[in-house]
């Protein structure tokens, strides 16, 4: 009960900070929209190539974009935490009886809510391009994005608490996210990839989320890849949350 109250209080604080600067929602959604407008048309002509999944270019590409948004939208949230470390805010909270779980979860919920707003904008913008999706499918995909957001935000916060400086945090995030992106099949489906590349990609949890989202967008809600994608994201998110909560509880220099 106290924990829930703490989560709510921490969430409200960060939601309040976000509301002062809602421009971030638009900035965050700008990149996927650019992909949608400037990259997706290229896929139209190769959608006929053997090995390209069925469903048409947009129903294949937009789910990937949404997953990308979920992952990378949350990967950078640690930056704001480093500024707070420097201002002594984290230390101040750690001396209060506030739950350590709430310190993470209150923030992460704000991040997730922001991602969901962005994802909804992206889906709506994709409709005129010929995206087909029904309401249940949207909910499943949003749930998947929320899990990925929680996973990435937790890892991002844990790294920020560990590194404590933007100078080392930024290269870490950029270096770690690029292979995740390339091996996820977001840009081009991995069904086009040679066998060895597909084998490496199989180790990338993100690729399962992309598969799951594509299955949903192609009206295969019951497909095993959906369960698999959600389950993998969920289990990893639990581990990431545990790691980040521990970091919030531990000593900071």
């Amino acid at each position, binding site marked *: 009960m106290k924990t829930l109250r703490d989560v709510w209080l921490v969430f409200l604080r960060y939601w309040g900070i976000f509301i002062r600067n809602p421009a971030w929602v638009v900035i965050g959604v700008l990149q996927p929209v650019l992909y949608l407008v400037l990259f997706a048309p290229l896929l139209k002509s190769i959608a006929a190539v053997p090995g390209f999944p069925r469903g048409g270019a947009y129903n294949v590409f937009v789910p990937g974009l949404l997953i990308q948004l979920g992952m990378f939208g949350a990967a950078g949230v640690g930056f704001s935490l480093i500024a707070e470390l420097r*201002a002594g805010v984290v230390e101040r909270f750690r001396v209060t009886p506030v739950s350590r779980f709430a310190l993470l979860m209150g923030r992460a919920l704000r991040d997730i809510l922001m991602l969901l707003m962005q994802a909804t904008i992206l889906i709506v913008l994709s409709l005129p391009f010929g995206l087909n999706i029904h309401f249940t499918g949207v909910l499943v995909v949003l749930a998947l994005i929320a899990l990925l957001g929680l996973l990435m935000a937790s890892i991002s916060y844990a790294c920020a608490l560990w590194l404590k400086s933007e100078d080392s945090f930024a290269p870490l995030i950029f270096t770690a996210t690029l292979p995740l992106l390339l091996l996820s099949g977001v840009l081009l489906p991995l069904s086009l990839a040679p066998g060895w590349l597909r084998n490496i990609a199989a180790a990338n949890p993100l690729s399962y989320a992309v598969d799951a989202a594509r299955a949903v967008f192609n009206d295969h809600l019951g497909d095993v890849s959906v369960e698999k994608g959600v389950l993998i994201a969920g289990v990893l998110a639990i581990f990431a949350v545990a790691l980040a909560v521990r970091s919030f509880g531990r*000593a*900071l220099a």
Partner: protein
Amino acid sequence: MTGEAVIETRGLRRVFKTRKETVEAVAGVDLRVFGGEVFGFLGPNGAGKTTTLRMLSTLLQPSGGEATVAGCDLRREPGRVRERIGYVGQKGGSDPQVSGRDELILQGRLYGMSKGESVQRAAELLNVLELEDCADRVGSTYSGGQRRRLDIGIGLMHGPRLLFLDEPTTGLDPQSRARLWDEVRRLRDSGTTIFLTTHYLEEADALCDRLAIIDHGRIVAEGSPDDLKRQVAGDVVTVGVSGGAEEALKLFEGQDFVREASAQADGTVRLYVERGETAMPAILRLLDRESLELKTITLTRPSLDDVFLRQTGRSLREVAA
């Protein structure tokens, strides 16, 4: 609460391990801080002040030793310690993007206060700390002094009986510093025990009822600023009389309140005494009785720097520079 030990430590230690070496930042500290006093921790940067304070405020796990803080065992009940203490870190703790009022209200609620209570208490503190004018502006618009007062307000929201202040006046201009000293004294007078660290001699001297001097992770001296200075050499009274120093010197040498007397080149007599304030009347009476005319008399006290110098062989002013 007054007079009882609010903080008690026995052999408190903290070791930091880096890749190459092990550093003992705090090497066995025994302390007692009593209810209702301003207790200062004085020492150069890196002496172990902040590390000790962070251990006592549950931010850092001790590597060894024991401590009781606000009636609770530090290692076994850190949660209960947190409920009872206030802490204001060196870096402050308020977010530049959030208004002072919102910071205070949130802080109160994190300690379990209801929204109404918290709003009311925040208004009270904003009034007392004279922050009403900027209460609803975001923190980035505050002056250094305002920011510091807000940080202290945040530490006071839940009305703790024990407040930790880590380097509270570092970086403040002299005016804001004096203002903050007044605030600390007012808190003490209202019954709050204050544990602060500082590397300013003047601050330790002016503000603290008792203090401990720490160097290389060890306490080298402890007591009230006056006691500490007296331990060093006592006070010095310099007396100038008409008719030269010889006669006066002979007169003073026999007195039991004078530890040592010497004639100075400028014709004055330098007397080392136990307590300057009681020695001065005696000196005046003595001169009067012997009908010697007093021309000048000055009392100088050793500074805390002399204490530090004597205990560590180094001057704090040099170490700090």
